[in-house]
């Protein structure tokens, strides 16, 4: 956004109105508006500038974090740069690659496509939240065993996508696994090992340990 804010963006210079702002961010804003946080509580006619900070509380990996955020900050930005949770990777910041996949109330979503203010009131789980202390969680363990990565950069997103899939569907078919990770690009091309790891993770989660 630059200084020359136009009619479409809210109709006043130097910032956007709440209405304009929410219209421009789309359906996700409804979540924010109903979540009852500080930013959304401003009156309809009050102008929110990009740099106006709002106070929010985010529930991430079971911990509450009180934060001051700009309304335009993405959840991805806040997780990485403000909370230091670098397991969530930045790949495209436009909802294409899935490297920033996190669980929002248990379902995989791209953190780059969610505003931090929208995430208030949701339970966020990142890669770090899948660990048991210093021990790997079952999906992470399965990825290690099947070498389901090369450079490892898309891996947090892939792991979280598989975790989300297995929470919804503990016993997925081959095709369901494919679809479950189809929103996560792997340029190294390790998909076949990711499929195997997903099956192995399902076994591990069902308590079927032992050799893979």
């Amino acid at each position, binding site marked *: 956004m*630059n200084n020359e804010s136009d009619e479409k963006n809210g109709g006043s210079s130097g910032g956007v109105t709440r209405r304009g702002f929410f219209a421009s961010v789309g359906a996700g804003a409804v979540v924010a508006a109903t979540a009852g946080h500080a930013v959304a509580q401003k009156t309809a006619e009050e102008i929110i500038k*990009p740099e106006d900070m709002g106070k929010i509380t985010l529930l991430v990996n079971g911990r509450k974090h009180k934060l001051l955020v700009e309304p335009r900050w993405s959840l991805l930005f806040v997780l990485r740069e403000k909370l230091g949770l670098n397991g969530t990777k930045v790949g*495209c910041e436009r909802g294409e690659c899935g490297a920033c996949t996190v669980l929002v109330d248990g379902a995989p979503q791209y953190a780059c496509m969610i505003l931090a203010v929208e995430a208030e009131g949701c339970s966020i789980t990142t890669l770090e939240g899948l660990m048991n202390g210093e021990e790997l969680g079952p999906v992470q363990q399965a990825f290690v065993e099947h070498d389901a990565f090369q450079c490892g950069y898309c891996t947090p997103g892939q792991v979280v996508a598989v975790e989300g899939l297995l929470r919804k569907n503990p016993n997925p078919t081959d095709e369901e696994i494919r679809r479950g990770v189809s929103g996560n690009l792997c340029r*190294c091309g390790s*998909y076949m090992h990711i499929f195997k790891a997903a099956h192995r993770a399902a076994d591990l989660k069902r308590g079927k340990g032992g050799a893979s």
Partner: protein
Amino acid sequence: MKDQDESLYYVGDFPVPESPEPGQEPKPWGKTRVIGKPIPRVDAYERVSGAAVYTSDVTFSDILYGVVLGSPYANAKVRSIDVASALKMPGVHAILTGSTKGADLVWPYVWGKDKAKLFDPHCRYEGDLIAGVCVETPYQAWDSARAIKVDYEVLPFVSDERKALDPKSKAVEAPDKRVAKTEKYERGNLEKGFAEADIVLETEYRTECQIQTPIEPHGCVAKWDGDHLTLWHSTQGVFYIQQQVAEVLGIPLSKVRVIGRYMGGGFGSKLEAGKYTIVAALLAKMTGRPVKLLLSREETFLVTGNRPPSNMKLKAGVKKDGTLTALHFTVLGTGGAYESGGISLTDWLVRDLYTCPNVMCESTEVLINAGLTCPFRAPGHPQGAWALEQMMDSLSEKIGMDPVEFRLKNIPSFSQARQGNPPYTTTGLKECLEQGAKAFGWEEARKKTAQQDKDNPVRSGVGMGACLWFVGGGGPPSTIVLKLFADGSANLNMGASDLGTGTKTIMAMVVSEELGIKPDKIQVENADTGSTQFATRSGGSKTIPTESPAVRAAAIDVKRQLFQIAAEELKVPASNLALQNGEIIPNADQSKKVKLNKLEALKKRGVIIGIGYRGPNPEKKWVNPFAAQFCEVKVDTRTGEVRIVRFFAAHDSGRVMNRLTYDNQVIGGITMGIGLAMTEMRVLDHNETGKVVSRNWHDYKLPTALDVPWEIVSIAIDPNDTEANTTGAKGLGEPVTIPTAAAIANAVYNATGIRITNTPINPLQLSRLMAEHKTRR
């Protein structure tokens, strides 16, 4: 020899320190305990837990964010830049342009252009550097970059390399420089060769421009402490970045430390520093704060390299008995706005893969107003294979010979294209073809597709392709320092980057093989110019064959010293000692065995330090990997959709070092080859603007989980290469993607009878070709 291309991967002939001494090299391993086994990575925990710190993860409490502003035009001159209002934007700390003090720097990393500027007032391609901005948050950075007012003189452009030689097109360089480079290779007598042929075919082929786009964006974090610069850089070679940055900034190498322990994919696009690297360093200097500068995803599509488009023509002559008599290959390519490898190695497979006495290759690199190319995973080879391997398929059909048999008939044992025709240390091409075909069930599969129901709209097809990779033997220099601690665990110090190929794990396995230490007790320290040993860049599939012999030498050096200590303590000659499972065992009296941590002298010393160097390659012999890939497709003739059912890949990359990471390379290479064949293409707006249209992963489609077959089978051919180096490993990461696209095209031909000479084989093109095919019939 193609000096320029080979210099990328080999430093050349020079004396190197050797350990052990020449003539004392260790014997090749016999039966191995660790090497070759499927062992999970030593850094797997870090990569799956989020503990691995990639460059994009590096941060400081006082960090600032940098962004670059690039030219929005394919060709434009900068008249003036006004940063006044941008400087007033919230959070702005500094703006860097060509007129900033200290920014008037030479950018020498453009081939054939030794006086190019970091900030060139003539931006010959979209995205070329205009300014750098450094701000409190990335959001403010983008705001302020957009607030910079640039007055451009927008110039006509040329974006289609096929029209670049047309005098009516604009030339990139005044007065009329259109051609960056030409190359010609010739052996034998072409005319005579074609006269001897029973069949002569000539076909034009084209591969579209492919862009690497690793998932971690290109970028770095720059931090100054006085006159000392530390750079965290996503790169394939920290020492090369160190050299580039020191050279451009004019400071000693000792004042630049580059760290790149984890990097999120490169595929050739992170072999060099970018202009952004220097911008980050200068902004950090201007502000006295650390600066993180990651390119945006869009920018990575514009300025970080590509596999250039190749317009190829191949004329081939063959006798009815399958003897190749002549090959005439021409290619028109482009490296973008500067000479940058736009035709590099495209002709290599035509020159060297199959026995043929009469060969001519003519290559022309033209200039267009687009971002520069760089060595993309096996530069030139997948394009050359697209032409050659489809031509081999066509020829075999014409002479009524099986494509595998035809290739088997033409396997050379030496490099025909190199001076002196050096023999290969090993060539497993025959075994790749035979064992690959057998595992795939090639003959039966061919029979089945020939007999399939003509009325079924979904048609099956099988196809194959073969290749070599022109380097892949590795070579000096490399130095490894291996520390054995008093408790029997170890630290391996190596300068090389691990791109995700499993380098660190394989090196730990080499130590484990020699010293009996479990890989998980070996800490690997790598890719840091400040704390690890000099290494060349990880590229050219040379990292494993370069580093693993040096690691083996270091381990042997440790063992020698260890036995000296133990011999004194146990009063047994060192030559009578063996090392097993952390114990020193005298051959004569096994009851006297002692655990490493019980050796008094080792405890006192604290550590044994072994040093290993990479010795020279064999003289007058050449080391190349070879491969053959087979695939089956199903083509829906109603929609033009192609589904790949299965891929079998037989690779001779020397000794298999780790079966798990080896197979992973194979499936990854095939996946990337599927991208070249079926989904990826850079689109430039030839009509209006010359700009890149496909500048994100929606418009430029990478293969996804839905585009790869469930069955990819890796067949490892180990030719037991005892000459290549002391571990017998050859390169793997590049050959795995060379024949893939051609094998798919051959399979689609087998299914439909339609020869697809242009990538990508997508429903749009295939349905159009099928409609034309029907009309013709």
